Structures are given as structure tokens and as C-alpha cells.
């Protein structure tokens, strides 16, 4: 069947706890989401068969649509008929997803490239081994044995470069004699993507002890990264070694028309597709219970990071430990006297041991969202550190560079050029008011100039990601029309000024308000309602020293897009500095919350 003839698509995402199924149908020329179903994932005991959960989720879709989707205990793929679907595909992060170790010669060069390759392929990188990581050989061997990754990616040396260093790393892996997580009788898959001159020695060192796969060097020269072959091999091995060993996956693999993708790789795929098609610079975040994934496309370069210790349930105590209580409390709009520090710590720990609980009072919600802000901020800091240009490359200089000698390896993330910020995960997608999600994104990421904010409505980005690998048009249509909940544009001038000074002047013909000329003072926020799909051409005049990307005090003519949260004008300045004085801080937070109508009673501590 030609892909252009596909009318019904079923896609599932097997998460650690829940399996989600979506049914997409072609209506006229457009693909639209029809219905969604979910059921608990059944990869662990007692069922130990992932397909049970899949069938349960699909069964829910079947009930909701009345269309027969299951036959003989399997998904019914009946091309072009009135029952079943034309194509079925799936992603998976069940059983902890794909867990990898990577190794390279220099931590900031080939080891970092290996890390990017693994993260981009949807893996969680458990450890990065490098010749210069400061650990002694026995410590590295101990780490490999203790962590038991699903596979190891070994890189190092450019083609024709160092041999001794990369062979030394291979010897360490060989000495550790690692065993994979799944399949006791199998050898651990090792992908060698390093110096091609060293291949025979690597084969001699690891060929018998591991299941060795050799691909093209990820850094054939230091000036270029070649991550594709390594990523493809990771996907293949994920299917062959990891998925094939996990309970029920062999059966599931036989049902799908395209290879099962790791969930994060699928999310990355849809983000990349959108960025490519729209010419956007985009950041996507998925704040989960255990981890926070950030995806970005800047200067057409895709990057993904996983902050494996930052999450809103299992990892919530790590957020507290990393950010510290004062940094969390600074987002809470009540005086410290109304907060019992011990009680707050207990609440956070309770969330960790009871991860499925949700806030019952407004206070709890405010605290959870304060923690989410810090988790997002910390994860973004980690992302910026990895989303960097290549290090160690030769530069060309002119005399004008005398006082501005830029370094290689600068972060690619530029908030001024960011077009779209997409949030996902329960805390963002299921916030009681959409404007709360918008404010969490703003406080966590601190977008600059004009940025469009959105959240994933029902977390269907993984399914759309795997769909985008074969039907990018269909994936994009559903992403834009059904996946995204459009929150609206955020306008945030860069710079800091004096309290009370005018920061931004807005001039526009605003739907329902006529000609609008508004001023927003420094240190304040404002919101103007603008419905979804409505657009306004506005003249934005930042007052010196503020900047909207065209220079201090320079006008920006921008098209602002509406959403459920309207258009938010954030004139708190960049970098964002909260008042140090507690009374001033609480007062400022309450003003901002009131301006955006974030919480009922403007964030008072009264229970909702």
C-alpha cells in the first residue's frame, strides 16, 4: 500500500507505567486525531507481556470509535478496509528505556560526540568514560560492571589519529567483561565508532568478549561530527538486543510496520521535523516523574539531553537537593512565616514515595509548580552545556578579533532567536490553568524577545515522532492541529533597568479592543487576551536599555500569535532577578500572578 493511500493510523507509546494509543484518520486532505486510549503497561509481573497493555489501550480506542481494531489477540492491520487500521507503529520507553554508556578519548571531544549520538538516539547515558575523566582504570572497570548498560558506544580518535588511547578504553571494557541488562546468555553489544585505523586492534580486543559492531567514526576529523551511522546502529541494536529480550516485544515488533523507536528518539524526531519544515528554532521539554528531557534545534543542529535526576515524582528529592530549598521557596508567593520548612520537605519526600499523588490544595499546587520551575531551569542549564558547537577546531582570525577572541564549543542555544517553546509532561500538560503552564515555562526557560509557547495536550509527541519517520506531512498536521495546545506568544525584553521605569510600549490594533497603546513598567508582567489562531501585528518599542533583539531601544515589528493564555508581556528583565527582600519578593510574585490571573485569589495560601 502506498503511504499516500493510508487513511487510518494507529500508534502506541509503551511508557514505564502507561501505554497510550492514538488513532489518526484522514479527513479530506487532512490527518486528524480521532481518539485516544490508555491502559497500564504490562511489561512487568504478573503479565510480563507488553502486548497485553497495548491491546488494552487499543481496546479502549476500539470502544470509543466502534471500529474493530483487534483480532486474534493482535492489532488488526487491514489495509484499505472498514475495520482495522492501515498502518500500526509504536514507541517504547518501558523497562527504563535504552540505557547506555559511552566512551571517548577526550571528554569534551569524542566522548561528548558519543554522548550526543546516544542521547539523540533516545538513550539515557548512564556514564561517560574518557581517558581524561580523572578516574583510575579500576574505577572505570568497576563503573562498567556496576551500571550494566544495554550497550556501550566506544569512540575516540579521528581517522588516522590516536590508537593507543582508544585501544586502552577497549581494554578497560574487555577487562570489565560486561553483561547486558536483559538476556543472561547474550554478549553486551558494543558499537565502535572511532578511529578507523584502530579497528583491527579493537576487533582483536573486544571481538570475542562482546557483541562488537563497527560503524563509521563519529569524528572522522575534529571539524565534523558524523553521528548518523552510530545513531542508526543504536536503533538497530535497540530492536535486536534490548527490545527482543524484553517481555512481549518480539510479538509487538512483528505487528509494527516500522521499527519500534525509543520514546525520546521519537519525540526528538517530531521536534526535528517541525523545526525543519517551519524553519523554526525550537525547544521541547518533557518533564517526567524521574527524568526531564530537553530537545532543541538551533542553527539546524538537533540536540537532546536527559536530566536523569530531575523529575517531579521519583526524582523530586533530587530537585530539592540540587536547587536547594531557598531557590524553590523564592517562587512561592507566601511569606516564609506561612511555610513550615520541615513540612515542605516532608511534602516533597511524600511525593517521591507516592509518585502518583497530585496536589490537593492550592498551596500544594503552588509548591509543586515552584519545584517544576527549578527542575526546568536546572535541566535547561545542563542542556545548554551539551548543546554546544564542536570543540578543538582551528579558527580563522583577523585583526578585528584582537579583543573578541571567541572560543569554540560555545552553546548553540540562543534565546533571542528561539521561535517556539513546547512543554510536555504531566506538570505542564495537566496544569489546572494553561496560564500556569505558560508561566512555568517562562520562569524555567526565561525566553527572550518574542517566543511562542505551547504544551502537548495529551503527550502524543512520541507517536507523532515515529509517524514522522514515514509520513512527515501527517505527523505535522496532527501535531499542529491536535497535539499542541497553543498558549500564546511571550514578549520579554532583555536587560535590566530601574524600578518603575517604562520597559516596553505596545502599539497594535487588537481584536476586540481596537487600537491599543499600552506601556509596561520594568518589573511587571501583563497579559492581553488573544484567542487561538488569532494574530496581531504589533509595534513593540523597548525603552533603552531594554532590547528585543534589534538593539537597545530599537523597535520590533512582530506578529504575535494568540493562544489560551493570550499574549504575555514579561517585563521583569533578563537576566531575571527576583527581589532579595522577602516582602518585596512576595509582593512582586503576587503582582505577577494577579496580572496573569494564574491562581484563584491571586496565589493566596488559602486552600482551593
Amino acid at each position, binding site marked *: 500500500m502506498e503511504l499516500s493511500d493510508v487513511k487510518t493510523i494507529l500508534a502506541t507509546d509503551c511508557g514505564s507505567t502507561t501505554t497510550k494509543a492514538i488513532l489518526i484518520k484522514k479527513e479530506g486532505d487532512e490527518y486528524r486525531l480521532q481518539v485516544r486510549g490508555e491502559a497500564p503497561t504490562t511489561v512487568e509481573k504478573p503479565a510480563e507481556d507488553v502486548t497485553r497493555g497495548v491491546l488494552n489501550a487499543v481496546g479502549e480506542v476500539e470502544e470509543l470509535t466502534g471500529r474493530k481494531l483487534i483480532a486474534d489477540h493482535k492489532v488488526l492491520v487491514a489495509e484499505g478496509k472498514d475495520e482495522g487500521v492501515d498502518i500500526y507503529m509504536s514507541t517504547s520507553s518501558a523497562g527504563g528505556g535504552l540505557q547506555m554508556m559511552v566512551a571517548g578519548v577526550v571528554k569534551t571531544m569524542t566522548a561528548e560526540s558519543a554522548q550526543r549520538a546516544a542521547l539523540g538516539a533516545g538513550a539515557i547515558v548512564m556514564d561517560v568514560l574518557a581517558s581524561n575523566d580523572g578516574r583510575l582504570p579500576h574505577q572505570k572497570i568497576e563503573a562498567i560492571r556496576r551500571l550494566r548498560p544495554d550497550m556501550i558506544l566506544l569512540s575516540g580518535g579521528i581517522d588516522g589519529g590516536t590508537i593507543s588511547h582508544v585501544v586502552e578504553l577497549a581494554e578497560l571494557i574487555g577487562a570489565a567483561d560486561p553483561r547486558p541488562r536483559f538476556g543472561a546468555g547474550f554478549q553486551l553489544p558494543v558499537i565502535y565508532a572511532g578511529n578507523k585505523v584502530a579497528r583491527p586492534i579493537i576487533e582483536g580486543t573486544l571481538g570475542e568478549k562482546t557483541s562488537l559492531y563497527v560503524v563509521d567514526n563519529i569524528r572522522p576529523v575534529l571539524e565534523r561530527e558524523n553521528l548518523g551511522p552510530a545513531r542508526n546502529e543504536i536503533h538497530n541494536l535497540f530492536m535486536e538486543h534490548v527490545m527482543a529480550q524484553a517481555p512481549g516485544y518480539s510479538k509487538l515488533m512483528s505487528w509494527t510496520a516500522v521499527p519500534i523507536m525509543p520514546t525520546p528518539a521519537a519525540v526528538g524526531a517530531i521536534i526535528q521535523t517541525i523545526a525543519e519544515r517551519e524553519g523554526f528554532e525550537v525547544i521541547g521539554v518533557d518533564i517526567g516523574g524521574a527524568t526531564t528531557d530537553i530537545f532543541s534545534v538551533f542553527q539546524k543542529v538537533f540536540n537532546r539531553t536527559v536530566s536523569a535526576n530531575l523529575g517531579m515524582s521519583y526524582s523530586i528529592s533530587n530537585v530539592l537537593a540540587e536547587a536547594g530549598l531557598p531557590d524553590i521557596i523564592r517562587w512561592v508567593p507566601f511569606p516564609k512565616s506561612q511555610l513550615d520548612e520541615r513540612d515542605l520537605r516532608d511534602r516533597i519526600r511524600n511525593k517521591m514515595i507516592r509518585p502518583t499523588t497530585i496536589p490537593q490544595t492550592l498551596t500544594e499546587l503552588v509548591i509543586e509548580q515552584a519545584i517544576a520551575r527549578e527542575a526546568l531551569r536546572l535541566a535547561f542549564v545542563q542542556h545548554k552545556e551539551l548543546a554546544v558547537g564542536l570543540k578543538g577546531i582551528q579558527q580563522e582570525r583577523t585583526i578585528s578579533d*584582537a579583543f573578541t577572541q571567541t572560543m569554540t564549543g560555545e552553546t548553540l542555544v540562543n534565546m533571542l532567536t528561539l521561535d517556539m517553546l513546547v512543554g510536555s509532561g504531566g506538570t505542564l500538560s495537566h496544569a489546572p490553568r494553561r496560564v500556569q503552564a505558560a508561566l512555568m515555562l517562562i520562569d524555567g526557560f526565561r525566553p527572550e524577545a518574542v517566543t511562542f509557547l505551547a504544551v502537548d495536550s495529551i503527550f502524543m509527541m512520541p507517536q507523532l515522532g515515529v509517524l514522522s519517520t514515514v509520513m512527515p506531512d501527517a505527523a505535522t498536521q496532527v501535531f499542529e492541529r491536535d497535539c499542541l495546545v497553543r498558549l500564546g506568544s511571550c514578549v520579554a525584553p532583555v536587560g535590566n533597568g530601574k524600578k518603575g521605569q517604562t520597559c516596553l510600549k505596545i502599539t497594535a490594533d487588537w481584536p476586540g479592543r481596537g487600537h491599543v497603546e499600552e506601556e509596561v513598567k520594568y518589573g511587571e508582567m501583563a497579559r492581553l487576551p488573544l484567542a487561538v489562531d488569532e494574530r496581531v501585528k504589533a509595534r513593540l518599542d523597548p525603552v533603552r536599555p531594554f532590547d528585543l533583539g534589534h538593539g537597545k531601544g530599537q523597535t520590533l515589528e512582530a506578529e504575535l500569535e494568540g493562544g489560551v493564555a493570550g499574549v504575555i508581556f514579561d517585563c521583569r528583565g533578563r537576566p531575571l532577578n527576583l527581589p532579595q527582600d522577602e516582602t518585596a519578593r512576595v509582593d512582586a510574585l503576587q503582582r505577577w500572578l494577579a496580572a496573569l490571573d494564574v491562581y484563584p485569589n491571586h496565589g493566596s495560601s488559602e486552600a482551593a
Partner: protein
Amino acid sequence: MKRLSLAFATLLLWGAAACAAAEEAAPAVTARDAPNDAGGAVNVAWEPAAAEKEAAFTGYEVQRRASGEKEFVKVDRTAPGELAFRDEEAEDGVEYEYRVQALAAGEKAVVLGTASAKASGQWFNTARTNALIGVIFVTAVIVFFIYRAKGGAELFVRKIAGLEAVDEAIGRATEMGKPILYVTGLGDASDIATIAAMTILAKVARKTAEYETPLIVPCYDPIVMIVEKEMVKQAYTEAGKPDAFDEDSVFFVTQSQFGYVAAVDGIMLREKPATNFYMGAFYAESLILAETGAETGAIQIAGTDRVTQLPFFITACDYTLMGEELYAATAYLGRDPLFLGSLKGQDWAKGVIMAFLILGTILLIFSTDLGLRFAKLFETAG
């Protein structure tokens, strides 16, 4: 009452006598030890002679005799109106008597008077009190910052790209399996730029030892070579890899400027080092070295205090340490509180000096008199 009148009268008499003595004692010639000097000088001055305005008047003659000598000896002759003489041939501790005579054509010389003085050195030059204050200020600032650094305070030092890139440059050589070339220029061991280059070499050598990457150090000066060999050996020992140190990695080439350049260029072309460091004193060879290195595809980090060579390095190298950045490298790379505190203290002192310069310029623009008075505060002559 009678007693009071008597006292008053006594006071008046004493006052009158004192005034008379002063009038009598007002000497026509004075001789004094020259102040604020190291000794060996006497200043002689005199009042103008009555005949000075006459046409026949030709000038003054200064004569001198040491104590115990009978005859005066001429030591100088001055023009009319020139009423002072500095005798810089006096011996410390010897009493000299000076006699000044007014000379007129066709007339006998008239003795204006005589005066005696001994030359001696002074312990403290009061004319340089401002310099003392400056030194105390700078020292205090440096000591303050050293103590702050030792106390664990985070002293901000702006990012120096050339030094930040050291790790990256060594990493590149490691990945490429190529050596690192370190050139310390043509300075000798007493040249401050060479000393700075050697301290950076120690840091680089430690890194190359950790990364197990070969290091090549061709030397222009044999004494510099000996020092550098010891420094590199020490760095390898500190890194826990003394056996990785190669005695032949630091070697003497030649003291012929262009012979040295030819040899280093040859090394670049044969060994193809992945990273070249040029730190120290460089002259005409700077561009030849840097261009050859760039052609071989190496990352190059240069640092020199020779202003005339900086443009060549800036355009041909990836990173360049300019002037004092080279001296700051030790503190920057090592983060030793002593060096870091000194660096910070010196920066502050320079900041204050710059502020005074700006203030002086502004004062001069608005009021020449005020500006000159302000400038006098910083004069140290005398």
C-alpha cells in the same frame, strides 16, 4: 607692678637685640647641604650684588676651600642674574667654605660674602613621599586581595580565551595522535616574558603528561633549555607519570635567530604537531613561525609582550595572549591564592592610577592651573 615693668622692658630689649642681630646676620651668601640626595652636593646661593645693573658687571665667581686649606679655589663662574650654584664635587663630611665674588670689567673683584656647609646624604627623600604613599597603597591592596583569596573568596578574573583554550588544544593533539610544540621565543632566562612562558610550560606539561600526549620544546637559549627541562620533568612527576618524561623532548637548537626559525619550521612540517604554543619574547620570526604552523593545520596559541609582534600573532594564531595577559597566565591557570591576589591587587592599583590620569586630564581641560597643581602631587623629582 615694678617687677612686671622690669620684665616688659627686658622683653623689649631682648626683642630689639634679636632684630638687630637678624639684620646683621642676613648673609649675602648661603651654603647648605643639598636636600633629598645621596650626599656629595652643596647648594650655594647669594644675594645680587649692588653693581649687577651696571654695564661693566660680568658675573659672579664661586670659590671654595676645604677646612684646613688656606687658599680659595675657583669652582664655578655664573652669568649676571644667576644667583645659585650646586657643588656636586663636595666630599661628604668635609666642611667647605664658599666665597662668592662679584666681577666687573676693569675693576677689582668684590667679595659678597662667605658661607660654610658640609655635604651629607639623607635617609628619606621627602620629594618622593607621594611615591611612598603609592607603594604603601599598592602593597596594601595586594596583601588585602591575597588574604581574601586565601580566605576562600572567589576572585573574579575575566575569561582569557587563549588560556581557556589550553585544555582544548591539548585535547585536539590527543585525539589526533600528534605532538604538541611549545616555543618559548628568543628571550633569555632573565626576560620576564620568558619566565612567564616557562611557568605556562609547566602547566601545559602537566596536562600533556595526564593526556599522555608527546611534547616538543625546542630552545633558543641553553640556560632556558636547562630550566625548562627541569620544569617539564617536575610536571611529569607531579602528574604521577615520571616515566613518561622524554629527556629529548626539551632540546637546544641554536642561538642564530633564523637558524632557530628554520629548525622549528622543519619540525612543524615533519612532525605536523596538532597544537603549537608560542609564548615569550618574539621578534621578526613571529610571523614565519605562526604562518607555517597555520599552514600545517595546527591550533595555535601565542602570547607575547612584544607589541610589534602582536598583530602577526593575532591574525595567524587561533588565540593570542596580549601583553600582561601573558603575565597573568600563571595566576589564571594555577588559581594559586598568592598569584591570584597579586593579580587582582595590581589590577585595582592600575585602575586607581587610570582614574587619576582621567581626573588629571579633566582638570587640565577645565583649568590649567588646577590641572598643573594636581600633576605636582605626582612629581617625584628632587
